[in-house]
């Protein structure tokens, strides 16, 4: 019983972080119908920037956030610019394009940082934290969870209560109608890519302090992010949170009761089942086919 509770707790914390990784992808998918297959690599880029700053200056990796954000927003906007250059069949060609950009980023990181595994040197993040006398976590895991929840909550508020946020929502629900109302859809899309960059940078720094980084994990982060996006249904932020927590708990339980190598198999299987039974996701309204 205690083991189950601990597994679910760890899973929930993990899920909060997954939500942070996935929400940027979901946002862009919502506004532009483009699945950015380089999103996980953008997250990883931020993580490597945190590593570079920490190893060069010895300061707390969290302080690398401004640099990470600047670089990742720039990278995200370049991706947006290139995606906009696609002339025909953007839905499929953008998949291949961002897949290519992901390869460029992964190999670029491999060239600069080699295939070695890095993690933070700061011991503060590794210290234990006990909640309700029996649930254990690392400080960094709790931090990532809280940052994830705040980012999702903030984004939800921003989309619903600010002018730019509403512009993004109107473009994502009907691009032509938004244009007729005097909206500039390209500008709204630009905003969503920039915000996706901010979210990826947050996720990347959290990734670095909670876990270990090496080049191939960018790809698996992308896969996880779109699994959650599809589970959530198009552009639904509460859906992303629920989907991410679900994946986190499934992985936590599989790791505890079976083995960690099977955790990805479990989440992948759930993803396929949901996709086949409910092609529009758990919370989506539009049909996926």
């Amino acid at each position, binding site marked *: 019983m205690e083991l189950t509770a601990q597994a679910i707790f760890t899973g929930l914390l993990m899920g909060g972080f997954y939500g942070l990784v996935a929400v940027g992808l979901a946002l862009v998918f919502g506004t532009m119908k483009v699945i950015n297959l380089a999103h996980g690599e953008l997250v990883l880029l931020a993580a490597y920037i945190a590593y570079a700053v920490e190893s060069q200056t010895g300061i707390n990796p969290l302080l690398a956030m401004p640099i990470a954000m600047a670089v990742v927003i720039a990278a995200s906007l370049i991706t947006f610019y290139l995606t906009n250059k696609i002339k025909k069949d953007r*839905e*499929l060609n953008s998949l*291949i394009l961002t897949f290519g950009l992901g*390869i460029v980023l992964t190999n670029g*990181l491999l060239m600069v940082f080699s295939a070695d595994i890095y993690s933070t040197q700061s011991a503060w993040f590794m210290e234990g934290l006990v909640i309700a006398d029996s649930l254990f976590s690392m400080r960094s895991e709790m931090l990532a969870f809280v940052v994830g929840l705040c980012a999702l909550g903030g984004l939800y508020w921003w989309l619903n209560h600010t002018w730019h946020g509403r512009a993004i929502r109107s473009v994502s629900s009907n691009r032509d109608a938004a244009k007729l109302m005097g909206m500039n859809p390209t500008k709204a899309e630009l905003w969503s890519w920039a915000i996706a960059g901010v979210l990826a940078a947050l996720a990347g720094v959290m990734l670095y302090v909670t876990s270990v980084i090496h080049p191939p994990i960018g790809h698996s982060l992308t896969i996880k992010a779109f699994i959650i996006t599809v589970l959530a249904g198009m552009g639904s932020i509460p859906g992303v949170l629920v989907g991410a927590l679900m994946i986190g708990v499934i992985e936590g339980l599989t790791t505890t009761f079976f083995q960690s190598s099977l955790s990805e198999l479990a989440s992948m*299987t759930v993803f396929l089942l949901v996709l086949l039974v409910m*092609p529009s996701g758990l919370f989506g309204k539009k049909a*996926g086919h």
Partner: protein
Amino acid sequence: MNIKISALMLGVMYLGVPFFLGDNDYLIGLVASALIIAGVAVAWALLGNLGGMVSFGHAAFFGVGAYTSAVLTMDYGVPVFVALVVGGVGASLSSIFMMPALRLRGPYFALAILAYAEIFKILATEATGLTGGAGGLLSIPSLPVFAGVDFGTKLGGYIVILNIVTLMLITYYFIRRSSYGLALKAMHDSELATRIVGVPATYLKVVMLLVSAFMTGAVGAFNAHYINFLEPDYAFSGTWTVFPIVAAIFGGYRTLSGPVLGALFIYLVDQLVFKNLIPQGHQLILGVMLAGMIILSPSGLLPVITNLFTRKKADNKRGEAQHA
């Protein structure tokens, strides 16, 4: 035009390459490896061009084909050439698990296939009894001596993979020319309209997936006997998806010979030039090429070059007409 290019290409591959490179094991091995990529690229392009489906999961078919053939020859003593075909059949069978994904449209299909490929990789690593797990399978039998020719050599292997790719191209050519090809072409323009006039669209897509999986599996099986070693991370590696996609897009995935020429070019340039320039991360160039092609010329280089020639011809003719 396309057929002429294909014929010329095959002529060079059958006569020119063995004649000039036949006694250089390193170079003939490189060309054979490029042809392995080419085989998968043709299978990928067949699914993309005829079936209208972009797949990020061909590594799964490649791996399943490789393991099927390796296990059959090692544990059950099946002759290698028979096992190559059964490897293809195995990959086709594995594609049946992916059939439900055919309900999904465009990008959803592409991503579902990617998830399937990951699942197959994990299963292969975990099913240690069958696949040897992460430790891998060693000393997989080489291609045998057949009709007095030793196909186990580098040159022999080259001839075998060349024949496999040629057979694939011929199959592709006839499918495209058949009434199925016409129906599939019509499906590109409007799947709904095609369904309404009575074309069994889903059935055709299923057949294309089976054919593409079979081809990829057979090539994967060949590779297993060619290098005599398998491990899950290698057999199901994303490389078997990345290289063929880049090759097919680069050469032009709507043409017959484009994926093959693309694979030869990409692989040889990568191995001979970029690998020496950038020892770690040389696949970066592949990503740049892929992204560049999609933006600048999504239909690939071959159609552009062909267009250039035909336009020149047309210009010449016009010039002659004016002189006369």
